[in-house]
Protein backbone atom coordinates (compact mmCIF):
# COMPACT_ATOMS: atom_id res chain seq x y z
CA UNK A 1 0.00 0.00 0.00
CA UNK A 2 2.75 2.40 0.92
CA UNK A 3 4.25 1.87 -2.49
CA UNK A 4 1.00 2.91 -4.13
CA UNK A 5 0.93 6.00 -2.01
CA UNK A 6 4.38 6.91 -3.16
CA UNK A 7 3.78 6.42 -6.84
CA UNK A 8 0.35 7.91 -6.86
CA UNK A 9 1.02 11.53 -6.20
CA UNK A 10 3.89 12.35 -8.43
CA UNK A 11 4.27 15.90 -9.47
CA UNK A 12 5.36 16.96 -12.89
CA UNK A 13 8.53 18.92 -12.72
CA UNK A 14 7.55 22.07 -14.48
CA UNK A 15 9.65 25.00 -15.48
CA UNK A 16 10.86 27.17 -12.71
CA UNK A 17 7.97 29.08 -11.17
CA UNK A 18 5.19 26.92 -12.56
CA UNK A 19 2.88 25.39 -10.00
CA UNK A 20 3.22 21.69 -9.39
CA UNK A 21 0.59 19.73 -11.27
CA UNK A 22 -1.17 16.81 -9.68
CA UNK A 23 -1.29 13.89 -12.10
CA UNK A 24 -4.51 11.94 -12.38
CA UNK A 25 -8.08 12.82 -11.68
CA UNK A 26 -9.15 15.03 -8.82
CA UNK A 27 -12.60 16.22 -7.76
CA UNK A 28 -12.79 19.42 -5.74
CA UNK A 29 -15.86 20.49 -3.77
CA UNK A 30 -18.26 18.77 -6.13
CA UNK A 31 -21.98 19.44 -5.78
CA UNK A 32 -24.71 18.05 -8.03
CA UNK A 33 -28.34 18.93 -8.60
CA UNK A 34 -31.21 17.46 -10.58
CA UNK A 35 -33.53 20.40 -11.08
CA UNK A 36 -33.88 21.94 -7.60
CA UNK A 37 -33.01 18.65 -5.95
CA UNK A 38 -29.57 18.79 -4.33
CA UNK A 39 -28.22 15.24 -4.66
CA UNK A 40 -24.53 15.54 -3.87
CA UNK A 41 -22.84 17.85 -1.42
CA UNK A 42 -19.24 18.96 -1.29
CA UNK A 43 -17.30 15.87 -2.33
CA UNK A 44 -13.56 16.14 -2.79
CA UNK A 45 -11.61 13.08 -3.82
CA UNK A 46 -8.39 12.29 -5.61
CA UNK A 47 -7.94 9.31 -7.88
CA UNK A 48 -4.19 8.73 -8.20
CA UNK A 49 -2.74 6.93 -11.20
CA UNK A 50 -2.46 3.15 -11.01
CA UNK A 51 -4.87 2.73 -8.11
CA UNK A 52 -8.33 1.25 -7.72
CA UNK A 53 -10.77 3.40 -5.78
CA UNK A 54 -13.97 1.84 -4.52
CA UNK A 55 -17.02 4.00 -3.88
CA UNK A 56 -19.38 2.39 -1.40
CA UNK A 57 -22.59 3.44 0.29
CA UNK A 58 -26.30 2.69 0.28
CA UNK A 59 -28.49 3.24 -2.79
CA UNK A 60 -29.34 6.83 -3.64
CA UNK A 61 -26.34 8.41 -1.92
CA UNK A 62 -25.00 9.94 -5.13
CA UNK A 63 -22.17 7.52 -6.00
CA UNK A 64 -23.32 7.05 -9.59
CA UNK A 65 -24.02 10.75 -10.00
CA UNK A 66 -20.52 11.44 -8.72
CA UNK A 67 -18.73 9.19 -11.19
CA UNK A 68 -20.88 10.47 -14.05
CA UNK A 69 -19.59 13.92 -13.14
CA UNK A 70 -16.02 12.69 -13.56
CA UNK A 71 -16.35 12.16 -17.33
CA UNK A 72 -19.02 14.73 -18.11
CA UNK A 73 -21.85 12.26 -18.53
CA UNK A 74 -23.87 14.11 -15.87
CA UNK A 75 -24.88 16.83 -18.33
CA UNK A 76 -26.90 14.40 -20.48
CA UNK A 77 -29.61 14.31 -17.84
CA UNK A 78 -32.14 17.12 -18.38
CA UNK A 79 -32.14 19.58 -15.49
CA UNK A 80 -28.74 18.49 -14.26
CA UNK A 81 -26.48 21.11 -12.69
CA UNK A 82 -23.20 21.03 -10.77
CA UNK A 83 -20.70 23.10 -8.88
CA UNK A 84 -17.04 22.54 -8.11
CA UNK A 85 -14.10 21.40 -10.16
CA UNK A 86 -12.92 18.17 -11.71
CA UNK A 87 -9.24 18.40 -12.52
CA UNK A 88 -7.52 16.06 -14.94
CA UNK A 89 -3.75 16.46 -14.66
CA UNK A 90 -4.49 19.85 -13.18
CA UNK A 91 -6.88 21.09 -15.89
CA UNK A 92 -10.56 21.66 -15.09
CA UNK A 93 -12.61 19.46 -17.41
CA UNK A 94 -15.57 21.80 -16.99
CA UNK A 95 -13.85 24.92 -18.28
CA UNK A 96 -15.57 26.28 -21.39
CA UNK A 97 -12.84 25.56 -23.94
CA UNK A 98 -12.73 21.87 -23.07
CA UNK A 99 -14.19 19.37 -25.55
CA UNK A 100 -16.36 16.98 -23.54
CA UNK A 101 -15.91 14.21 -26.14
CA UNK A 102 -12.13 14.39 -25.73
CA UNK A 103 -12.54 14.09 -21.95
CA UNK A 104 -14.70 10.98 -22.31
CA UNK A 105 -12.02 9.49 -24.55
CA UNK A 106 -9.56 9.78 -21.67
CA UNK A 107 -11.99 8.87 -18.90
CA UNK A 108 -13.84 5.76 -20.01
CA UNK A 109 -16.90 4.20 -18.45
CA UNK A 110 -18.36 0.74 -18.01
CA UNK A 111 -22.02 0.53 -17.10
CA UNK A 112 -24.09 -1.62 -14.79
CA UNK A 113 -25.79 -3.52 -17.60
CA UNK A 114 -23.52 -5.00 -20.28
CA UNK A 115 -24.24 -3.00 -23.46
CA UNK A 116 -22.28 -4.31 -26.43
CA UNK A 117 -23.47 -2.71 -29.68
CA UNK A 118 -25.96 -5.20 -31.13
CA UNK A 119 -25.24 -4.31 -34.78
CA UNK A 120 -21.52 -5.13 -34.43
CA UNK A 121 -19.64 -8.38 -33.91
CA UNK A 122 -17.08 -8.92 -31.15
CA UNK A 123 -14.15 -7.56 -33.15
CA UNK A 124 -16.09 -4.52 -34.32
CA UNK A 125 -17.27 -3.89 -30.79
CA UNK A 126 -13.70 -3.72 -29.53
CA UNK A 127 -12.71 -1.37 -32.36
CA UNK A 128 -15.87 0.72 -32.12
CA UNK A 129 -14.33 3.43 -29.93
CA UNK A 130 -11.49 3.89 -32.41
CA UNK A 131 -13.93 4.17 -35.32
CA UNK A 132 -16.34 6.44 -33.45
CA UNK A 133 -13.59 8.84 -32.41
CA UNK A 134 -11.80 8.78 -35.81
CA UNK A 135 -8.57 7.57 -34.25
CA UNK A 136 -5.77 6.50 -36.56
CA UNK A 137 -4.45 3.09 -35.60
CA UNK A 138 -2.00 1.03 -37.61
CA UNK A 139 -2.71 -2.50 -36.46
CA UNK A 140 -6.32 -3.27 -35.69
CA UNK A 141 -5.72 -6.96 -35.03
CA UNK A 142 -3.09 -6.20 -32.41
CA UNK A 143 -5.49 -3.82 -30.63
CA UNK A 144 -8.27 -6.40 -30.65
CA UNK A 145 -5.99 -9.05 -29.22
CA UNK A 146 -4.36 -6.87 -26.57
CA UNK A 147 -7.64 -5.33 -25.37
CA UNK A 148 -9.44 -8.66 -25.21
CA UNK A 149 -6.45 -10.15 -23.40
CA UNK A 150 -6.36 -7.35 -20.85
CA UNK A 151 -10.08 -7.77 -20.32
CA UNK A 152 -9.54 -11.51 -19.80
CA UNK A 153 -11.71 -12.54 -22.73
CA UNK A 154 -9.23 -13.36 -25.48
CA UNK A 155 -8.94 -17.10 -24.85
CA UNK A 156 -12.70 -17.53 -24.84
CA UNK A 157 -13.50 -15.62 -28.02
CA UNK A 158 -10.39 -15.74 -30.21
CA UNK A 159 -11.98 -18.31 -32.54
CA UNK A 160 -15.26 -16.48 -32.97
CA UNK A 161 -14.43 -12.82 -33.29
CA UNK A 162 -17.11 -12.36 -35.94
CA UNK A 163 -19.92 -13.62 -33.69
CA UNK A 164 -22.30 -10.98 -32.39
CA UNK A 165 -21.77 -9.58 -28.90
CA UNK A 166 -25.22 -10.82 -27.95
CA UNK A 167 -24.13 -14.44 -28.33
CA UNK A 168 -21.84 -14.12 -25.30
CA UNK A 169 -22.88 -14.73 -21.69
CA UNK A 170 -23.57 -11.78 -19.40
CA UNK A 171 -20.13 -11.88 -17.80
CA UNK A 172 -18.41 -12.20 -21.17
CA UNK A 173 -20.47 -9.30 -22.52
CA UNK A 174 -19.34 -7.13 -19.61
CA UNK A 175 -15.71 -8.05 -20.24
CA UNK A 176 -16.26 -7.23 -23.92
CA UNK A 177 -17.50 -3.80 -22.81
CA UNK A 178 -14.36 -3.38 -20.72
CA UNK A 179 -12.21 -4.37 -23.71
CA UNK A 180 -14.13 -1.84 -25.79
CA UNK A 181 -13.35 0.95 -23.32
CA UNK A 182 -9.68 -0.04 -23.24
CA UNK A 183 -9.23 0.22 -27.00
CA UNK A 184 -9.18 4.02 -26.93
CA UNK A 185 -6.51 3.93 -24.21
CA UNK A 186 -8.20 5.87 -21.43
CA UNK A 187 -6.17 6.96 -18.44
CA UNK A 188 -9.08 6.40 -16.06
CA UNK A 189 -11.82 3.77 -16.24
CA UNK A 190 -15.04 4.44 -14.33
CA UNK A 191 -17.14 1.39 -13.48
CA UNK A 192 -20.70 1.83 -12.29
CA UNK A 193 -21.60 -1.40 -10.47
CA UNK A 194 -20.06 -3.50 -13.25
CA UNK A 195 -20.76 -6.82 -11.53
CA UNK A 196 -24.23 -6.32 -10.06
CA UNK A 197 -25.87 -8.26 -12.91
CA UNK A 198 -23.30 -11.05 -12.96
CA UNK A 199 -22.77 -14.40 -11.29
CA UNK A 200 -19.90 -14.92 -8.78
CA UNK A 201 -17.67 -16.61 -11.34
CA UNK A 202 -17.94 -13.76 -13.82
CA UNK A 203 -17.53 -11.28 -10.98
CA UNK A 204 -14.26 -12.94 -10.05
CA UNK A 205 -13.02 -12.74 -13.63
CA UNK A 206 -13.86 -9.03 -13.78
CA UNK A 207 -12.07 -8.42 -10.49
CA UNK A 208 -8.98 -10.13 -11.90
CA UNK A 209 -9.32 -7.93 -14.95
CA UNK A 210 -9.46 -4.83 -12.75
CA UNK A 211 -6.29 -5.89 -10.96
CA UNK A 212 -4.53 -6.23 -14.31
CA UNK A 213 -5.87 -2.92 -15.60
CA UNK A 214 -4.58 -1.01 -12.63
CA UNK A 215 -1.02 -1.68 -13.66
CA UNK A 216 -1.53 0.97 -16.31
CA UNK A 217 -4.56 3.12 -15.48
CA UNK A 218 -6.68 4.34 -12.61
CA UNK A 219 -9.94 2.53 -11.93
CA UNK A 220 -12.92 3.94 -10.03
CA UNK A 221 -15.53 1.36 -9.16
CA UNK A 222 -18.95 1.89 -7.64
CA UNK A 223 -20.13 -1.21 -5.83
CA UNK A 224 -22.74 -2.37 -3.39
CA UNK A 225 -20.70 -5.41 -2.62
CA UNK A 226 -18.50 -4.63 0.37
CA UNK A 227 -16.41 -7.77 -0.04
CA UNK A 228 -15.74 -6.72 -3.60
CA UNK A 229 -14.62 -3.27 -2.50
CA UNK A 230 -12.33 -4.90 0.08
CA UNK A 231 -10.93 -7.32 -2.49
CA UNK A 232 -10.16 -5.03 -5.41
CA UNK A 233 -9.69 -1.49 -4.16
CA UNK A 234 -6.61 0.27 -2.82
CA UNK A 235 -8.66 3.19 -1.53
CA UNK A 236 -12.26 3.38 -0.53
CA UNK A 237 -14.71 6.22 -0.13
CA UNK A 238 -17.90 5.89 1.87
CA UNK A 239 -20.90 7.98 0.80
CA UNK A 240 -24.10 8.53 2.75
CA UNK A 241 -27.33 10.43 2.28
CA UNK A 242 -29.43 10.74 5.41
CA UNK A 243 -32.49 12.42 3.93
CA UNK A 244 -30.64 15.30 2.31
CA UNK A 245 -28.00 15.35 -0.42
CA UNK A 246 -25.38 12.61 -0.48
CA UNK A 247 -22.00 13.43 1.00
CA UNK A 248 -18.64 11.85 1.60
CA UNK A 249 -18.34 10.42 5.11
CA UNK A 250 -14.87 9.00 4.98
CA UNK A 251 -12.18 8.21 2.46
CA UNK A 252 -9.10 6.23 3.26
CA UNK A 253 -6.94 3.31 2.35
CA UNK A 254 -9.24 0.31 2.00
CA UNK A 255 -7.54 -1.67 4.77
CA UNK A 256 -7.95 1.14 7.26
CA UNK A 257 -11.54 1.89 6.22
CA UNK A 258 -12.56 -1.73 6.72
CA UNK A 259 -10.62 -2.49 9.88
CA UNK A 260 -10.27 0.76 11.73
CA UNK A 261 -12.60 3.44 10.32
CA UNK A 262 -12.56 6.80 12.02
CA UNK A 263 -16.32 7.34 11.68
CA UNK A 264 -18.81 5.12 13.53
CA UNK A 265 -21.24 5.25 10.58
CA UNK A 266 -18.56 3.79 8.34
CA UNK A 267 -17.93 1.08 10.90
CA UNK A 268 -21.64 0.24 11.06
CA UNK A 269 -21.91 0.13 7.27
CA UNK A 270 -18.86 -2.02 6.56
CA UNK A 271 -19.92 -4.43 9.31
CA UNK A 272 -23.33 -4.74 7.63
CA UNK A 273 -25.32 -3.12 10.45
CA UNK A 274 -27.29 -1.02 7.95
CA UNK A 275 -27.56 -0.21 4.24
Amino acid at each position, binding site marked *: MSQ*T*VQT*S*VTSVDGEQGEPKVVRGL*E*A*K*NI*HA*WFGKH*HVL*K*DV*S*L*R*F*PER*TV*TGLIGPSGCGKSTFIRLLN*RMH*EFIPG*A*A*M*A*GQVLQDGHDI*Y*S*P*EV*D*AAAIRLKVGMVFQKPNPFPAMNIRENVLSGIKLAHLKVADHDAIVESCLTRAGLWKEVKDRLTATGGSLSGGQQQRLCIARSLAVEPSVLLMDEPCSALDPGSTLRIEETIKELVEKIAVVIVTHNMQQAARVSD*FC*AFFLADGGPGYLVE*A*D*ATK*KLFTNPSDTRTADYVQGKFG
Partner: protein
Amino acid sequence: MSTMIVPTERANVAPEPTTPWRPTRKNKSISSIVFLISVVLSAAIVLLTGLAGIDGFGLAFFAVFMAATIVRSFRLNQKNRKDAFVGVLIASAAVLAFFPWMSIFASVILKGVRGLQPNFLVENMQFTTPDDELNMGGAAHAIIGSMLMVSIAAAITLPLGILSGVYLTEIRGRLTFLVRFVVQSMSGVPSIVAGLFIYTTFVNYTDAFSGMAGALALAVLMLPTVARTAEEVLKLVPDDLRSASYALGARQWRTSLMVVLPTVRSGLMTAAILGVARVIGETAPLLLTSLSNNSFVFNPLGGPIGSLPTYVFGLLQIGTENSINRAWTGSLVLMIVVLILFTTARYIGGKDKR
Protein backbone atom coordinates in the same frame (compact mmCIF):
# COMPACT_ATOMS: atom_id res chain seq x y z
CA MET B 1 -3.64 11.27 5.79
CA SER B 2 -3.94 9.19 2.66
CA THR B 3 -3.33 10.38 -0.83
CA MET B 4 -6.95 10.38 -1.87
CA ILE B 5 -7.87 13.18 0.47
CA VAL B 6 -7.88 16.52 -1.30
CA PRO B 7 -6.95 19.43 0.93
CA THR B 8 -9.83 21.88 0.50
CA GLU B 9 -11.50 24.54 2.52
CA ARG B 10 -14.96 23.40 3.51
CA ALA B 11 -17.50 26.01 2.53
CA ASN B 12 -20.45 26.29 4.87
CA VAL B 13 -22.71 27.86 2.27
CA ALA B 14 -23.70 25.65 -0.66
CA PRO B 15 -22.58 27.14 -3.98
CA GLU B 16 -25.00 28.02 -6.76
CA PRO B 17 -25.82 25.23 -9.23
CA THR B 18 -24.05 25.82 -12.51
CA THR B 19 -24.27 24.25 -15.96
CA PRO B 20 -20.84 24.78 -17.52
CA TRP B 21 -21.80 22.67 -20.57
CA ARG B 22 -24.38 25.19 -21.73
CA PRO B 23 -23.48 28.40 -23.62
CA THR B 24 -22.79 31.14 -21.12
CA ARG B 25 -25.17 34.06 -20.80
CA LYS B 26 -22.50 36.32 -22.23
CA ASN B 27 -22.15 34.12 -25.32
CA LYS B 28 -25.90 33.94 -25.71
CA SER B 29 -26.29 37.72 -25.58
CA ILE B 30 -23.41 38.16 -28.03
CA SER B 31 -25.18 35.69 -30.33
CA SER B 32 -28.45 37.60 -30.21
CA ILE B 33 -26.68 40.93 -30.74
CA VAL B 34 -24.87 39.50 -33.78
CA PHE B 35 -28.21 38.23 -35.05
CA LEU B 36 -29.90 41.62 -34.63
CA ILE B 37 -27.00 43.49 -36.23
CA SER B 38 -27.11 41.07 -39.17
CA VAL B 39 -30.84 41.71 -39.61
CA VAL B 40 -30.37 45.48 -39.58
CA LEU B 41 -27.33 45.36 -41.85
CA SER B 42 -29.01 43.15 -44.43
CA ALA B 43 -32.10 45.38 -44.35
CA ALA B 44 -29.79 48.32 -45.09
CA ILE B 45 -28.18 46.41 -47.94
CA VAL B 46 -31.61 45.68 -49.43
CA LEU B 47 -32.59 49.38 -49.15
CA LEU B 48 -29.35 50.81 -50.54
CA THR B 49 -28.29 48.35 -53.24
CA GLY B 50 -29.77 46.46 -56.15
CA LEU B 51 -30.85 43.50 -54.05
CA ALA B 52 -34.57 43.55 -53.49
CA GLY B 53 -37.43 41.62 -52.02
CA ILE B 54 -37.50 38.83 -49.50
CA ASP B 55 -35.07 36.63 -51.42
CA GLY B 56 -32.62 39.52 -51.64
CA PHE B 57 -32.93 40.02 -47.91
CA GLY B 58 -32.37 36.31 -47.32
CA LEU B 59 -29.23 36.31 -49.42
CA ALA B 60 -27.86 39.45 -47.78
CA PHE B 61 -28.68 38.09 -44.33
CA PHE B 62 -26.97 34.78 -45.02
CA ALA B 63 -23.83 36.52 -46.26
CA VAL B 64 -23.71 38.99 -43.36
CA PHE B 65 -24.40 36.39 -40.73
CA MET B 66 -21.79 34.01 -42.14
CA ALA B 67 -19.24 36.84 -42.17
CA ALA B 68 -20.10 37.74 -38.59
CA THR B 69 -19.69 34.10 -37.57
CA ILE B 70 -16.29 33.94 -39.25
CA VAL B 71 -15.15 37.09 -37.45
CA ARG B 72 -16.45 35.74 -34.16
CA SER B 73 -14.91 32.34 -34.62
CA PHE B 74 -11.36 33.73 -34.72
CA ARG B 75 -11.63 33.85 -30.95
CA LEU B 76 -12.77 30.26 -30.62
CA ASN B 77 -10.87 27.00 -30.58
CA GLN B 78 -11.10 24.63 -33.52
CA LYS B 79 -13.96 22.54 -32.24
CA ASN B 80 -16.16 25.51 -31.40
CA ARG B 81 -15.28 27.14 -34.72
CA LYS B 82 -16.52 24.09 -36.62
CA ASP B 83 -19.58 24.15 -34.40
CA ALA B 84 -20.31 27.78 -35.28
CA PHE B 85 -19.97 27.23 -39.03
CA VAL B 86 -22.12 24.15 -39.14
CA GLY B 87 -24.61 25.94 -36.89
CA VAL B 88 -25.03 28.76 -39.41
CA LEU B 89 -25.38 26.30 -42.30
CA ILE B 90 -27.99 24.22 -40.49
CA ALA B 91 -29.91 27.31 -39.40
CA SER B 92 -29.98 28.60 -42.98
CA ALA B 93 -31.15 25.20 -44.24
CA ALA B 94 -33.87 25.22 -41.60
CA VAL B 95 -35.04 28.68 -42.67
CA LEU B 96 -35.04 27.52 -46.29
CA ALA B 97 -37.07 24.45 -45.42
CA PHE B 98 -39.52 26.42 -43.30
CA PHE B 99 -40.01 29.10 -45.93
CA PRO B 100 -42.69 27.38 -48.08
CA TRP B 101 -44.55 26.35 -44.96
CA MET B 102 -44.37 29.83 -43.49
CA SER B 103 -45.51 31.32 -46.78
CA ILE B 104 -48.59 29.05 -46.95
CA PHE B 105 -49.37 29.86 -43.36
CA ALA B 106 -48.93 33.58 -43.88
CA SER B 107 -51.02 33.79 -47.04
CA VAL B 108 -53.90 31.81 -45.51
CA ILE B 109 -53.88 34.07 -42.46
CA LEU B 110 -53.50 37.33 -44.40
CA LYS B 111 -56.17 36.53 -46.97
CA GLY B 112 -58.52 34.73 -44.64
CA VAL B 113 -58.53 37.12 -41.71
CA ARG B 114 -60.64 39.71 -43.53
CA GLY B 115 -63.67 37.42 -43.60
CA LEU B 116 -63.14 36.13 -40.09
CA GLN B 117 -65.99 37.98 -38.42
CA PRO B 118 -68.35 36.73 -35.71
CA ASN B 119 -71.08 35.99 -38.25
CA PHE B 120 -68.71 33.61 -40.07
CA LEU B 121 -68.70 31.29 -37.08
CA VAL B 122 -72.43 31.34 -36.26
CA GLU B 123 -74.35 31.84 -39.52
CA ASN B 124 -74.82 29.62 -42.54
CA MET B 125 -75.24 30.35 -46.24
CA GLN B 126 -78.92 29.48 -46.46
CA PHE B 127 -80.16 33.02 -47.16
CA THR B 128 -76.87 34.53 -48.27
CA THR B 129 -75.38 34.41 -51.72
CA PRO B 130 -71.61 34.05 -52.02
CA ASP B 131 -71.44 37.55 -53.52
CA ASP B 132 -72.96 39.23 -50.45
CA GLU B 133 -70.85 41.35 -48.16
CA LEU B 134 -68.52 39.46 -45.80
CA ASN B 135 -70.53 40.55 -42.75
CA MET B 136 -73.41 38.35 -43.91
CA GLY B 137 -73.55 34.58 -43.91
CA GLY B 138 -70.98 32.19 -42.54
CA ALA B 139 -69.56 28.71 -42.40
CA ALA B 140 -71.07 27.42 -39.14
CA HIS B 141 -72.90 24.71 -41.06
CA ALA B 142 -69.66 23.61 -42.70
CA ILE B 143 -67.78 23.55 -39.38
CA ILE B 144 -70.55 21.49 -37.79
CA GLY B 145 -70.70 19.15 -40.78
CA SER B 146 -66.95 18.60 -40.78
CA MET B 147 -66.83 17.98 -37.04
CA LEU B 148 -69.78 15.60 -37.26
CA MET B 149 -68.28 13.52 -40.05
CA VAL B 150 -64.78 13.45 -38.60
CA SER B 151 -66.15 12.48 -35.18
CA ILE B 152 -68.13 9.60 -36.61
CA ALA B 153 -65.14 8.51 -38.69
CA ALA B 154 -62.91 8.68 -35.61
CA ALA B 155 -65.45 6.77 -33.52
CA ILE B 156 -65.39 3.99 -36.11
CA THR B 157 -61.66 3.90 -36.83
CA LEU B 158 -60.04 4.47 -33.44
CA PRO B 159 -61.31 1.23 -31.86
CA LEU B 160 -60.79 -0.68 -35.10
CA GLY B 161 -57.33 0.74 -35.68
CA ILE B 162 -56.16 0.20 -32.11
CA LEU B 163 -57.63 -3.31 -32.09
CA SER B 164 -55.82 -4.20 -35.29
CA GLY B 165 -52.62 -2.80 -33.75
CA VAL B 166 -53.24 -5.01 -30.71
CA TYR B 167 -53.87 -7.97 -33.00
CA LEU B 168 -50.61 -7.37 -34.86
CA THR B 169 -48.40 -6.87 -31.79
CA GLU B 170 -50.07 -8.61 -28.86
CA ILE B 171 -52.11 -11.50 -30.21
CA ARG B 172 -49.93 -12.16 -33.27
CA GLY B 173 -52.54 -14.54 -34.63
CA ARG B 174 -52.45 -16.57 -37.79
CA LEU B 175 -53.80 -13.71 -39.90
CA THR B 176 -51.09 -11.23 -38.88
CA PHE B 177 -49.55 -11.25 -42.33
CA LEU B 178 -52.91 -10.77 -44.04
CA VAL B 179 -53.98 -7.94 -41.70
CA ARG B 180 -50.70 -6.12 -42.15
CA PHE B 181 -50.92 -6.56 -45.92
CA VAL B 182 -54.49 -5.22 -46.07
CA VAL B 183 -53.64 -2.24 -43.86
CA GLN B 184 -50.64 -1.40 -46.00
CA SER B 185 -52.52 -1.61 -49.26
CA MET B 186 -55.38 0.41 -47.80
CA SER B 187 -53.01 3.25 -47.02
CA GLY B 188 -52.26 3.45 -50.74
CA VAL B 189 -55.90 3.85 -51.77
CA PRO B 190 -56.47 7.21 -53.51
CA SER B 191 -59.06 9.25 -51.66
CA ILE B 192 -61.37 9.51 -54.65
CA VAL B 193 -61.47 5.70 -54.83
CA ALA B 194 -62.53 5.55 -51.19
CA GLY B 195 -65.31 8.02 -52.07
CA LEU B 196 -66.35 5.93 -55.08
CA PHE B 197 -66.43 2.78 -52.93
CA ILE B 198 -68.87 4.36 -50.47
CA TYR B 199 -70.81 5.89 -53.37
CA THR B 200 -71.39 2.52 -55.03
CA THR B 201 -72.26 0.81 -51.75
CA PHE B 202 -73.70 3.02 -49.02
CA VAL B 203 -74.97 5.92 -51.14
CA ASN B 204 -76.55 3.58 -53.69
CA TYR B 205 -78.06 1.42 -50.97
CA THR B 206 -79.60 4.30 -48.98
CA ASP B 207 -80.32 6.16 -52.20
CA ALA B 208 -79.12 9.45 -50.65
CA PHE B 209 -76.00 11.52 -50.09
CA SER B 210 -75.50 11.87 -46.34
CA GLY B 211 -73.07 12.76 -43.57
CA MET B 212 -72.91 9.09 -42.66
CA ALA B 213 -71.70 8.24 -46.16
CA GLY B 214 -69.07 11.00 -45.89
CA ALA B 215 -67.97 9.71 -42.49
CA LEU B 216 -67.64 6.16 -43.86
CA ALA B 217 -65.49 7.37 -46.75
CA LEU B 218 -63.27 9.29 -44.31
CA ALA B 219 -63.10 6.21 -42.08
CA VAL B 220 -61.79 4.13 -44.99
CA LEU B 221 -58.99 6.66 -45.41
CA MET B 222 -58.32 7.08 -41.70
CA LEU B 223 -58.16 3.41 -40.71
CA PRO B 224 -54.76 2.46 -42.19
CA THR B 225 -53.08 5.54 -40.70
CA VAL B 226 -54.44 4.82 -37.23
CA ALA B 227 -53.74 1.08 -37.44
CA ARG B 228 -50.17 1.47 -38.61
CA THR B 229 -49.33 4.17 -36.08
CA ALA B 230 -50.93 2.14 -33.30
CA GLU B 231 -48.89 -0.90 -34.33
CA GLU B 232 -45.67 1.12 -34.33
CA VAL B 233 -46.22 2.55 -30.84
CA LEU B 234 -47.34 -0.80 -29.41
CA LYS B 235 -44.13 -2.37 -30.72
CA LEU B 236 -42.21 0.04 -28.49
CA VAL B 237 -43.63 -1.46 -25.28
CA PRO B 238 -40.83 -3.51 -23.73
CA ASP B 239 -41.55 -7.22 -23.32
CA ASP B 240 -40.51 -6.96 -19.67
CA LEU B 241 -43.78 -5.20 -18.92
CA ARG B 242 -45.83 -7.95 -20.55
CA SER B 243 -43.82 -10.60 -18.71
CA ALA B 244 -44.38 -8.79 -15.42
CA SER B 245 -48.10 -8.73 -15.99
CA TYR B 246 -48.25 -12.40 -17.01
CA ALA B 247 -46.17 -13.31 -13.97
CA LEU B 248 -48.86 -11.71 -11.80
CA GLY B 249 -51.33 -14.19 -13.24
CA ALA B 250 -52.98 -11.77 -15.66
CA ARG B 251 -54.67 -13.06 -18.78
CA GLN B 252 -53.60 -11.78 -22.16
CA TRP B 253 -56.54 -9.45 -22.70
CA ARG B 254 -56.18 -7.94 -19.20
CA THR B 255 -52.47 -7.45 -19.89
CA SER B 256 -53.18 -5.68 -23.16
CA LEU B 257 -55.98 -3.58 -21.74
CA MET B 258 -54.50 -2.57 -18.39
CA VAL B 259 -50.73 -2.66 -18.92
CA VAL B 260 -49.80 -2.32 -22.59
CA LEU B 261 -52.40 0.16 -23.86
CA PRO B 262 -52.11 2.64 -20.93
CA THR B 263 -48.33 2.62 -21.35
CA VAL B 264 -48.63 3.97 -24.89
CA ARG B 265 -51.57 6.28 -24.24
CA SER B 266 -49.86 9.36 -25.63
CA GLY B 267 -48.66 7.35 -28.63
CA LEU B 268 -52.23 6.22 -29.35
CA MET B 269 -53.31 9.84 -29.10
CA THR B 270 -50.72 10.59 -31.77
CA ALA B 271 -52.27 7.84 -33.90
CA ALA B 272 -55.66 9.50 -33.54
CA ILE B 273 -54.22 12.92 -34.38
CA LEU B 274 -52.48 11.61 -37.48
CA GLY B 275 -55.69 9.91 -38.56
CA VAL B 276 -57.77 13.05 -38.15
CA ALA B 277 -55.11 15.13 -39.87
CA ARG B 278 -55.17 12.68 -42.76
CA VAL B 279 -58.89 13.17 -43.44
CA ILE B 280 -60.05 16.55 -42.19
CA GLY B 281 -58.99 18.34 -45.35
CA GLU B 282 -60.23 15.66 -47.78
CA THR B 283 -62.52 17.07 -50.46
CA ALA B 284 -62.79 14.50 -53.24
CA PRO B 285 -64.46 11.65 -51.32
CA LEU B 286 -66.93 14.09 -49.75
CA LEU B 287 -68.06 15.33 -53.16
CA LEU B 288 -69.16 11.78 -53.92
CA THR B 289 -70.69 10.98 -50.54
CA SER B 290 -71.87 13.94 -48.47
CA LEU B 291 -72.07 16.49 -51.29
CA SER B 292 -72.55 19.94 -49.75
CA ASN B 293 -75.28 22.03 -48.21
CA ASN B 294 -75.82 25.67 -47.41
CA SER B 295 -77.93 25.19 -44.27
CA PHE B 296 -77.52 23.46 -40.93
CA VAL B 297 -77.79 19.66 -40.94
CA PHE B 298 -77.33 17.83 -37.65
CA ASN B 299 -78.61 14.41 -38.67
CA PRO B 300 -75.91 12.28 -40.30
CA LEU B 301 -78.60 10.45 -42.26
CA GLY B 302 -80.50 13.62 -43.17
CA GLY B 303 -79.32 14.12 -46.70
CA PRO B 304 -76.44 16.20 -48.10
CA ILE B 305 -74.37 17.98 -45.45
CA GLY B 306 -71.91 20.85 -45.64
CA SER B 307 -68.24 20.58 -44.72
CA LEU B 308 -65.29 22.98 -44.68
CA PRO B 309 -63.39 21.50 -47.64
CA THR B 310 -66.48 21.38 -49.89
CA TYR B 311 -67.41 24.87 -48.67
CA VAL B 312 -64.02 26.19 -49.81
CA PHE B 313 -64.20 24.19 -53.04
CA GLY B 314 -67.70 25.44 -53.95
CA LEU B 315 -66.90 29.09 -53.27
CA LEU B 316 -63.67 28.98 -55.24
CA GLN B 317 -65.58 27.65 -58.23
CA ILE B 318 -67.89 30.68 -58.20
CA GLY B 319 -64.85 32.88 -58.47
CA THR B 320 -66.16 36.33 -57.52
CA GLU B 321 -64.17 38.53 -55.15
CA ASN B 322 -66.32 37.96 -52.08
CA SER B 323 -66.72 34.25 -52.66
CA ILE B 324 -62.95 33.82 -52.93
CA ASN B 325 -62.53 35.81 -49.74
CA ARG B 326 -64.99 33.49 -48.03
CA ALA B 327 -63.04 30.51 -49.33
CA TRP B 328 -59.82 31.85 -47.80
CA THR B 329 -61.58 32.38 -44.51
CA GLY B 330 -62.89 28.81 -44.74
CA SER B 331 -59.31 27.57 -45.17
CA LEU B 332 -58.19 29.65 -42.20
CA VAL B 333 -60.98 28.23 -40.04
CA LEU B 334 -60.06 24.72 -41.17
CA MET B 335 -56.50 25.34 -40.04
CA ILE B 336 -57.66 26.75 -36.72
CA VAL B 337 -59.99 23.78 -36.13
CA VAL B 338 -57.12 21.38 -36.78
CA LEU B 339 -54.89 23.37 -34.43
CA ILE B 340 -57.50 23.30 -31.66
CA LEU B 341 -58.10 19.57 -32.13
CA PHE B 342 -54.39 18.79 -31.95
CA THR B 343 -53.76 20.97 -28.94
CA THR B 344 -56.64 19.42 -27.02
CA ALA B 345 -55.61 15.91 -27.99
CA ARG B 346 -52.02 16.57 -26.93
CA TYR B 347 -53.22 18.07 -23.67
CA ILE B 348 -55.45 15.11 -22.86
CA GLY B 349 -53.11 12.40 -24.10
CA GLY B 350 -49.79 13.97 -23.25
CA LYS B 351 -50.29 14.01 -19.50
CA ASP B 352 -48.22 10.93 -18.78
CA LYS B 353 -48.24 9.81 -15.19
CA ARG B 354 -44.58 9.92 -14.44
